[in-house]
């Protein structure tokens, strides 16, 4: 490291592109080997791991679903005992919500947002690496507990008193609550990074009205995380305190209240649905234009709808509690507010339909999944309107009708777009195309399998089948439909299998993609596939909503950044005018150690409260190690 700052610093002007790329590569690449892999802070590497890990959890959660379908395929079946079944459905819900859906959406954000706003790394890359490790350790914690037969068995919602100290002996519920803490920390960290990246690291000229819809969606999602996750953090902490040190937050015998838990949980839990769904809205809005050959219709309308949905989502939590016996006035208010969210959702659908109507669709796999999404999600929305009505809900609440409803919304509304997004951005992430033939197979298998599996559940619910039962009796009229559902689930699983086979095969053997295989207009397609460690040779300058115009092979860029340190551009919040040449941190193993220390503290604290005291010392040491400047050019200014 040269200390003579006054001497000539290498800038990215007046050198050839090849030489510039070489210098940037030297500055931005991670070291090879295990330590290099652990210490890397490249948002693409970290987010790639995040996505892969989340999909592993999807597979695990899916296997649990298959196990449940096996048990329910016939009445009074004895494949799985009730204790294991309760663990399985709790694990399925917790894994899908906390270890798959939220992380995968945040990881997509961590991968795509920096590329789409034209910057070189996410804001706070070390926090990003830390977030991944925490997420990974939290997921391992939960699954090791499952292997040990101490997995939580109180449902992913962990209602007290069932999850409280008296009725949930052992460490099962504590493990659930602590797993929540892990995923919370991870999610909050990414949310902060995304928000700051969007606010401060957009390419010059990318004013608020030129931000891609996906980035808007991720920004709103980040705010939902920031505002909603403290609620679950508070509730999981107080639950552990109730169980471990004898507080009485949820103990009605000592002035606590069982419903308090439900209020806190759903104050988080409802925005949670939109934390998962809004990124999907962004994905659809970004992918659709590439396959209909025209820009999205109603950009402003969509952005307003996104923000409205985000705001409204905080006013709906009580619709998960319509049957607890609340005052009628409150119920009517929440009926109205729950119904009203159909309006922004409708606006989104209308904008997409209009875009499709005016465009000329090219039926590639991503578009198929988006069409499947529209058909499925609108149905989920319709059943959403149904359960938003208090009287209607008193009949279907906690039945298979609701199971059907939220799988329509979550799989139809978020997983379909996510798979479309994987097909769409796979070439960018790996440099190779996914197979179109297998893509069509996977679409039709997933689409048909999904509807055959979940549509009958509506009927089962109306026929009186409650949720979360490990078996039912032969005299009830549910047997044949359940068997049908279980068989259809095999088709659905087959579809996912084809998808994963396709992804794994195409990673090595797919056709080379080139930098912009779809002819898309957003910035991530301006760089090579996969993008180099520094993302862009020079940071692009944006002058419209669609920075890449077809046929144009020149990109307006900004020059004058140093190449000997990781430097990127900080711009103003509204107009995105350049403000400073900020450095981006170097690789570091400290985030890994900090995550290890934090994990030790959190796991230890399941067993004794003193862990918080003693365990926080290594956490503090690793954090100091993380932040203490090492004298690299990135640490100075």
């Amino acid at each position: 490291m040269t200390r003579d700052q006054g001497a000539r610093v290498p800038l990215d002007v007046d050198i050839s592109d090849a030489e510039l790329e070489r210098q940037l590569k030297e500055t931005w690449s991670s070291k090879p080997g295990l330590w290099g892999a652990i210490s890397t802070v490249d948002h693409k590497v970290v987010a790639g791991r995040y996505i892969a890990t989340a999909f592993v959890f999807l597979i695990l959660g899916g296997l649990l679903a298959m196990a449940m379908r096996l048990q329910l395929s016939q009445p009074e079946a004895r494949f799985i005992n009730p204790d294991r079944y309760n663990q399985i459905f709790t694990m399925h819900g917790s894994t899908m919500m906390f270890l798959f859906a939220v992380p995968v959406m945040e990881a997509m954000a961590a991968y795509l947002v920096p590329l789409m706003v034209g910057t070189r790394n996410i804001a706070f890359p070390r926090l990003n690496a830390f977030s991944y490790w925490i997420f990974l350790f939290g997921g391992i914690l939960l699954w090791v507990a499952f292997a040990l037969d101490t997995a939580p068995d109180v449902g992913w919602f962990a209602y007290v008193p069932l999850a409280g100290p008296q009725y949930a002996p052992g460490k099962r519920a504590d493990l659930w609550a602590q797993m929540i803490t892990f995923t919370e920390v991870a999610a909050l960290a990414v949310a902060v990074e995304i928000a700051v990246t969007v606010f401060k690291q957009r390419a010059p000229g990318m004013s608020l009205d030129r931000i891609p819809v996906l980035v808007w969606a991720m920004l709103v999602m980040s705010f939902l995380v920031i505002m909603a996750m403290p609620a679950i953090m508070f509730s999981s902490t107080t639950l552990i305190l109730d169980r471990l040190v004898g507080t009485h937050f949820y103990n009605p015998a000592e002035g606590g209240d069982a419903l308090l838990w439900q209020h806190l949980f759903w104050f988080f839990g409802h925005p949670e649905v939109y934390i998962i769904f809004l990124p999907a809205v962004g994905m659809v809005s970004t992918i659709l234009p590439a396959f209909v050959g025209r820009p999205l219709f109603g950009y402003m309308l969509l952005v307003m709808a996104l923000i409205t949905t985000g705001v409204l989502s905080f006013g709906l939590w009580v619709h998960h509690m319509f049957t607890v016996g609340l005052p009628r006035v409150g119920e009517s208010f929440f009926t109205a507010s729950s119904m009203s969210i159909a309006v922004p959702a409708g606006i989104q659908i209308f904008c997409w339909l209009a875009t499709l109507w005016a465009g000329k669709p090219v039926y590639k796999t991503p578009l198929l999944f988006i069409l499947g999404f529209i058909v499925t999600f609108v149905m989920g929305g319709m059943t959403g309107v149904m359960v938003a009505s208090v009287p209607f809900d008193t009949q279907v609440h906690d039945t298979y009708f609701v199971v059907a409803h939220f799988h329509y919304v979550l799989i139809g509304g978020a997983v379909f777009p996510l798979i479309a997004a994987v097909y769409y951005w796979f070439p960018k992430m790996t440099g190779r195309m996914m197979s179109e033939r297998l893509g069509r197979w996977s679409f039709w298998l997933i689409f048909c399998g999904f509807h055959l599996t979940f549509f009958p559940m509506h009927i089962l619910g109306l026929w009186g089948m409650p949720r979360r039962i490990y078996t039912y009796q032969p005299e009830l009229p549910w047997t044949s439909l359940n068997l049908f559902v279980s068989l259809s689930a095999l088709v659905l699983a087959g579809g996912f299998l084809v998808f994963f086979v396709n992804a794994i095969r195409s990673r090595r053997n797919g056709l080379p993609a080139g930098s912009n295989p779809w002819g898309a207009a957003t910035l991530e397609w301006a760089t090579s596939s996969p993008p180099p460690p520094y993302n862009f040779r020079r940071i692009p300058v944006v002058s419209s909503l669609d920075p890449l115009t077809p046929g144009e092979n020149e990109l307006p860029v900004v020059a004058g950044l140093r190449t000997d340190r990781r430097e990127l551009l900080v711009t103003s919040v509204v107009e995105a005018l350049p403000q400073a040449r900020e450095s981006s941190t170097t690789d570091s193993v400290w985030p890994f150690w900090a995550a290890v220390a934090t994990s030790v503290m959190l796991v230890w604290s399941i067993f004794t409260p003193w862990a918080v005291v003693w365990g926080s010392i290594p956490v503090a040491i690793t954090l100091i190690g993380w932040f203490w400047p090492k004298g690299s050019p990135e640490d100075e200014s």
Partner: protein
Amino acid sequence: MRVQSAGAMGNKMSARIWFGGAAAGLAALAAVVGWMREPRQYRASPPLTAALDQLRLMPNAISGTPPEVYFALGKPYETTAFDLSQGKRLYSWFGCSACHGEGTGGKGPSFIDGWWLYGPSMVSIVASIRDGRPHGMPAFRNRMTTDEIWQLAGYIKSLGAYTASVTATARNDEKTGRPAENRAPAALLFNQGPEPLHPDQGPTP
């Protein structure tokens, strides 16, 4: 070119290290899983019950060796929160509190003062419940199954613990008249008690 190949080598190496690490991690995990599994049983199998019934008591019916199968199982009735909680429920269902209160004693002796008439070993407690003791403790041999007796014994032992344990039974929501089970009540309420007949049976906090 050379830089690249070194990088590729490094990648290969790191892949190998990753793979090795992952395999070692999985193996360690499997070992832990085998060792620490905490299954719940609602009804012990008959051979197991029969084996658990084979107590080897000292001639004076105080203390002794638990059957080998108990160790082979990993002492579940003392280390599994679920069994302890079952014991707690059995405690109330079988009316133990009529004589022993909330463990605080009454007509029968207290369990939480650190004093054990027949010593604090599991075998003694099991024998007391199963076969009864002089001066009013009835035999529960014909009212409870063997595994229920062990569960109950485990709970009673935890009531009189000197050291707080990570594995504790479920806490009551209602207030109780004694310290919670996971707080080492015997250490908190240690009572010297009468001079012991056999000093080795007495409490040693």
